[in-house]
Every structure is written in structure tokens, then in C-alpha cells.
């Protein structure tokens, strides 16, 4: 049987970037301004994330974004060793923590300043902001 080799890794990897949608733009605008903004239903008041057009609790399509507290507790994590996107190769291994925000939603982001052996469920962390471009700021966590 003839064989072909697998394609080589891309030479000049680019960071994957979010492309804000009509629904999510206020969230990304908030991060750029150093504010953690979450979508709330204008009818029943419940928070929802990720942003979407309809409230799954009361089906209202009216919503507004409000600034939310930045504290939370670690729900779980992974430590990424293999860079599936080669942009991240210099950062590996890096910790991605899934955090139960005090605001009632979860955020997945890199956790800086904590050693892997010290990670535990329930640990308190705080969301911080890392500007990437003029438009896009990404969240990350630090110990609180």
C-alpha cells in the first residue's frame, strides 16, 4: 500500500482570535474597557452566558449587559502540554481553569501564578484582563 506523510505544522502560527457577534459584542467591549460584563434578561433578570438572543428561562428577547463581580472558585482545570495550535507552544504547559464565577456563570481562562500541584477545586481566583490587540482583550485568572 502506498503512503503519504502527515502535513507539517504551520510555519507562522497566529493566535486564534474571537470574532465578536451581534450577541457577544458587549461582552468583548467590556473586557477591552476592563469590565466583566454579563448579559441579563430584561424580563426575569436571570444572567446568561455565553450571550444569546433568547432567555432560556422566560423566552424574552430583551436583555442588557451589566458589570459583574470578578471573583470565583475553581470548578476544574486542565494543564495543556501539547500545543494543538502551535501559537501556544511557547506557553505550554499552561493551566486552563474553569471557574464558577460569583456572578453565576462559568468562565474558562488561563490561570497564572498558581503551581499545578497546588490546584484544587474550590480555590478562590479573580478574573483579570490581558489586552491582545486594540480591539480584543482576553480574560485570565490570578489567585485572589
Amino acid at each position, binding site marked *: *500500500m*502506498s*503512503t*503519504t*506523510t*502527515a*502535513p507539517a505544522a504551520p510555519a507562522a502560527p497566529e*493566535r*486564534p*482570535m*474571537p*470574532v*465578536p*457577534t451581534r450577541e*457577544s459584542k458587549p461582552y468583548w467591549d467590556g473586557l477591552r474597557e476592563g469590565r466583566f460584563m454579563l448579559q441579563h434578561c430584561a424580563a426575569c433578570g436571570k444572567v446568561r*452566558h*455565553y450571550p444569546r438572543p433568547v432567555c432560556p428561562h422566560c423566552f424574552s428577547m430583551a436583555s442588557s449587559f451589566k458589570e459583574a463581580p470578578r471573583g470565583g472558585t475553581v*470548578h*476544574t*482545570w*486542565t*494543564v*495543556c*502540554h*501539547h*500545543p*494543538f*495550535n502551535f501559537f*501556544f507552544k511557547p*506557553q505550554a*504547559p*499552561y493551566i*486552563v481553569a*474553569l471557574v464558577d464565577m460569583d456572578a453565576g*456563570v*462559568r*468562565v*474558562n*481562562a*488561563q490561570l497564572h501564578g498558581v503551581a*499545578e500541584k497546588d490546584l*484544587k*477545586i474550590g480555590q478562590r481566583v479573580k478574573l483579570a484582563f490581558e489586552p*491582545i490587540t486594540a480591539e*480584543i482583550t*482576553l*480574560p*485570565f485568572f490570578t489567585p485572589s
Partner: protein
Amino acid sequence: MAHALRDTAAISGIGETAYTRGTAKSGLALQLEASLAAIADAGLGPRDIDGIIPYFPGGGIAEDFVANLGLPDLALSAFIPMGGATCVAALQTAAMAVATGVCKNVLISVGRTGYSGARVSTRLQQFPQFALAAEFEAPIGMFAPAQLYAQGARRHMQLYGTTPRHFAEVAVTTRNHAILNGNVVMNKPLTVEDHHASRMISDPFRLFDCSLESDGGAAVIVSASDRAKSLNKPLVTIMGVAEGHPESPASIAQRPDLLEFGLVKAARRGYEMAGVAPKDMDVAEIYDCFTFTVIRQLEILGFCKTGEGGPFVMDGRIGLGGELPINTHGGLLSQGHVVGLNHVIELTRQLRGEAGKAQVKDAEMGLVTGYGDMGDGSLAILRRAA
């Protein structure tokens, strides 16, 4: 009263290509090769196919089958967009189509160049279901299934004490089964030590916790049970089948319980349709994109309680000769990755008594699961007709 769909449809034909790493063939060619094998296995001709459910994206679409097989009157062309849960969920759609008379013979098929063609990062970007992961998680360095599913595995370990030793048992048992099969990518013995020494991919998943990227094709034909009786092979009927979609289906991060896969819902309905229980299973083919995924599905399927999946897989219980032999063909971990259609094929072989060295003695009933697309699930319970 029995469910209207119970036992009304049968797996009438199965076909596979060689599973390899490296091929000069296209995904479509692999898919058609497997499809022709399945059609021959059923004792049918290509023009008997009147329903097509191809795995998508990747491989061919219904138009390709009409063009290549000269299908005279295609009555159904459908996609089931559920990632790794697609193939087993497709059995439900196919069963509905043949039970109602919309179709006579539905072809479910996969053709994939997962090694020599587009690999994981490229492939996922074709899924609209991954749009949220692309927007909110890829930018922070989290996109591949090995990363997204690792967080659930880590939580299970922290809550219940599941360990890498448990993961290794799944990998080693699956490899032992693969070696008996012959048509596999990984045919060398694997030890627990090999597993523990393999490189970390995304903690807690090491290399040997991850399924293969391989090339190959697989196909299954579903026909009405009363028609399939007159075909070539022992009759294997679909006793129960269901698909299930979890809460927050496109974002694991926002799912209230990361470990509540869509299989929770599919299992409830699938067992109910079949009217049977976990203890009735002679063999189980469990979707094994990762070792941990097998452990958690065994819990969801009711073979043990939540949190007990790790200890359950130990002591030979899931190996041939054990209480519940699983993945008797080598699965996605060691045979090849055709999105689990190889699991459906293996269960059919077991129930026909055609599983060779891996044959479970007197296997009469078994189940097969699908898992994928951020946690969608599917279950089919098959049995050999009396």
C-alpha cells in the same frame, strides 16, 4: 406495550476497509469501498440502497453515492450532526425510515483521512457546533477535544478518586483486544507502564488515553427486519435506540454538570424501548475517544454507580472472559477512528458469532454507544434474533 420501533429494523450488512495511518485514497474512496463491502455482505446490490446517511463533515454526501453507485431512486438523504454520537444516532433515523417504509435499505457510512488528510484542529473548524468554543475558548488556548474533555475527567478524579491507573486499564484492555482483531492500526502490546510513561497531552490525558488519528472507511446497512431475514447473514435486530443532547450542548464550560453527557437521556430511552437492563448485556462497545470517556459512560449506562467507574474497569472485568467485555475490536483507541461505526460493526459481528479470536461466547445481546460533539450521546441495543 412494546415500543413501535423495537426490533423492527435490523443491521443487514457491515463493511470496512483496512485501518491504516497513511493512505493514497480519498475519504470518499474509502467510504465507497466500505459501502460496497457492506452491500455485498447484506446480499444486496448497490442499486438496492435508497437511503443515505453519511458522516458529515468529511467524506462523501448523498450526491456522491448517486453518482458512484448509480442509485436510481434515493428516498432519504440525511446528516446527523452529532460528532462521535452520529453513527449510533443514525441507526435511529435509519430504523425509523425502514420501519415506516420510507426506505428499504439505508446506508450509513464513514470515510476518513484523519491521519493523512485534515487533522483535528482543521476538522473541528468545519463544525458550526464548535462556534462557541472557537469564540470563547480557542483564544485562551483551549480547543481540541483532548483539552475540552480533560476538565471533566479532572473533576471526576478530584470528586471520586479516579486515577491514571484506571485510565491505563481501559487503554491496555482495549489494546489486548485489538491484537486479536488483525485489522487494526495499533498491533503491539501495551503495558500500564507504557501508558504512564507516554507524554502528557492535556492533563489528565496522556497520549495513550487518546484515540487514534487514522485513515479508513466503515459502512452499515439498516433494513426492515422482515426483509433482512431473507438476506445473507444471521439476523441482528435493533432492539432499542436513542440519541440524547445534554444541557448547554455547544459549551461544556456552561453545562451545570460537566459529567452529564447526552447519554444520560439516550440511555433512559434506549433501555426503555428495548425493555432490558444493563445486566442483560453480553458485550458492550463503548465510544472511546478517551479512556476516561469509557469509564464515565459505564457509570451512565448503569453498569456501576457514579464515581465507581474507575474501580469497575479493574480486575479483568472489561476484558474478554470478564463480566462485561468491552471494545472487543480495539475501539478508537487501538483499532482505528471511524467515528465509532467500527463499534456498530463489531457488535454486529459478536452477535452473528463472526468475531473470530475476540468472540464473546454465546453473545446474544449487546449495546453500542456514541459520544461526541461536546457531549452528545447515543445508544443502540442489538440482539441476535432467535
